[in-house]
């Protein structure tokens, strides 16, 4: 009787995972479709090699718009990430100190950009940035993306700081290190995996963000998601499936990196013991 319950639960969980992953699993093979269709052709189902092709990937790299979008996404993403990572790491160090006044309020303020509905953030940012002359500029989008990316850095760095052993800094000081040396040579390397993880999340976040970009970007600042957005709404071509596949691949690579960083950190902790 109890086994039946377990069986039902397992089935339910498997179905849940299929639901969660189906959109990713279907879009990958379809992006290799030799025909301009959005469904599996007979040939694809029989695994004939002629039914598959790389033509939609070639189409991305032959299109000026897509190349420009890729360039823009990286440009905006990298600068937003640098800004978010520096500000976020410093703030996490400050937040971790019990002497900081209004700690609960400050952390709520810092987290607020990512728990506010993105449409509201985008409307506010669009009006204000247009008023002060940052509408349709790279700087405007970079600032907005840094603002929604910084909270991720604060969260991940705070998590690593929670386990940080402050006696290490005292040890460094007793060995003659000045505070800056102690920070850069002792503390930063130890919390670096939180910093890198946060930076990666901030980057992905900027790379995928579309609502702010839809409102703010001029024709020059169109990013990958912005290009997909108009592609889907105007005339949908399988090139979009190829782009989607590349984005999924990017996320998988980033998450594997994060996972490796995590297990590396755990090993470090073990060997330190």
């Amino acid at each position, binding site marked *: 009787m109890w086994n039946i319950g377990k069986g039902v*639960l397992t089935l*339910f*969980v498997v179905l*849940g995972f299929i*639901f*969660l992953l*189906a*959109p*990713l699993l*279907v*879009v990958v093979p379809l992006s290799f479709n030799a025909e301009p269709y*959005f*469904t*599996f052709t007979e040939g694809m189902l029989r695994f004939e090699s002629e039914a598959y092709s790389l033509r939609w990937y070639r189409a991305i790299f032959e299109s000026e718009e897509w190349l420009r979008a890729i360039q823009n996404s990286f440009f905006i993403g990298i600068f937003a990430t640098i800004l978010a990572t520096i*500000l976020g790491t410093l*703030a996490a*160090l*400050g*937040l971790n*100190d019990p*002497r900081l*006044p209004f700690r609960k309020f*400050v952390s709520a303020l*810092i987290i*607020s950009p990512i*728990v*506010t*509905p*993105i*449409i*509201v953030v985008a*409307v*506010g*940012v669009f*009006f*204000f940035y247009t008023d002060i002359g940052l509408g349709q500029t790279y700087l405007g989008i970079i600032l*907005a993306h840094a*603002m929604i990316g*910084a909270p991720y850095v604060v*969260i991940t760095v705070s*998590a690593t700081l929670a386990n940080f052993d402050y006696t290490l*800094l*005292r040890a460094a000081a*007793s060995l003659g290190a000045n*505070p800056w040396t102690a*920070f850069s040579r002792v503390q930063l390397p130890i919390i670096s995996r939180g910093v890198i993880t946060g930076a990666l*999340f901030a980057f*992905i976040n900027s790379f995928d963000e*579309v609502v702010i970009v839809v*409102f703010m970007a001029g024709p020059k600042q169109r990013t990958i*998601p912005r290009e*997909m*957005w108009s592609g*889907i709404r105007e005339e949908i071509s399988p090139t*979009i499936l190829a782009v*989607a596949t590349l984005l*999924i691949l990017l*996320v*998988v690579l980033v*998450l594997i990196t994060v996972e490796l960083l995590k297990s590396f950190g755990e090993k470090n902790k073990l060997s330190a013991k």
Partner: protein
Amino acid sequence: MTAQYDIKSRIGPIGLALPLVAFIVITFLIPLANMIKESVYDADVADALPRTLRLLNDWVGPDLPSDEVFRTIAEEIVVLQENRTIGKIGIRVNRVVSGTRSVWGKTARRVDGVETDDMRTTMVGIDDRWSDLALWQGIKKAGQRYSAKHYLHAVDLTRGDDGSIRRVDTEQRVYNTLYLRTFWVALLVTLLCLVIGYPIAYAIAHTPPTLSKILLFCVLVPFWTSLLARATSWLVLLQSQGVVNDVLVWLGIVPDDGRLSLIRNMTGTLIAMTQNLLPFVILPTYAVLSSIPPTYMRAAASLGANPFQAFVRVYWPQSLPGIASGCLLVFILSIGFYITPAIVGGTKGQLISNMIAYHINDANNWGLAAAISVIVLMSVLILYVVFDRWVGVDKLKLS
């Protein structure tokens, strides 16, 4: 001696937190405050017709305004025509009194250079709508710098000529239906996420570490995958010639000529949004479930509880903080969802966010977009306050 070996002690916690706090205030809080101002403040008409509006201050009707008012507005219209801003004023006044948009351009073209002692007759001669009291009341109304008109509009209310507030005509009511629909969709999506997500979180928390890691990875990949990539996939999966329908036809569940319409309607919005937001329930719930000591369940069993009782009385109550933060996040994010409904929802599956975007991108009515955004923002804030009273915002787990 205070500790000086720590960079934190040198700069101090305030110095470290300040740059980001200042950054968020400038890039986030001030824009939000500005948006609130935008929703109640509109100086376009007031700045365009300052002298006319000052004269109209003393005018209430029922007679037409004095000839002086006509002469003043004629002069101001000529200036506006030269600045090429007359069209904008026409649009603004037209929002208050519809059907008056063409008055402005027509008058501007013909009033320039006219020398007359009786401007009133001349202007009524150009366009007899100048003798309409409603137009003058409309100008006065549109000329108010601060007004709640966008908020009234945003909840399907209007102010009558006598100043009383009433509901707009049935066929013009749009917003209240959309708030209600957004609320229901958010509620339904939250429930679906909980029903599908809880067992998944349970499974991840109670399998051997290796499998658990793989399963967690399978949740994180869709979580971080571009919303647009996921929306595209759903479009491909759910269309009538799409994979889901193909499989259903192949299995013989639906006939080939009776393919389900799963896209460009509410079904599409619900399916895609549930998948988009599922990780937001799974992750915090998993975090809480994995911290429940297994000894509690064994203790419950040894005290004579059957597995069902042990679950309901011991396990479930302890998982509530995770569920609560997950559900709150899903609900709040659902309220602001824009991309997915716009792509898979068609016209029937649109939510309030799509209306905000419409007023910014297409209708160019920023004040109204701001007012709706403020309403959405306030609802979310109220939810946080309720949540804080009930569970505590500091229990919110994001990763």
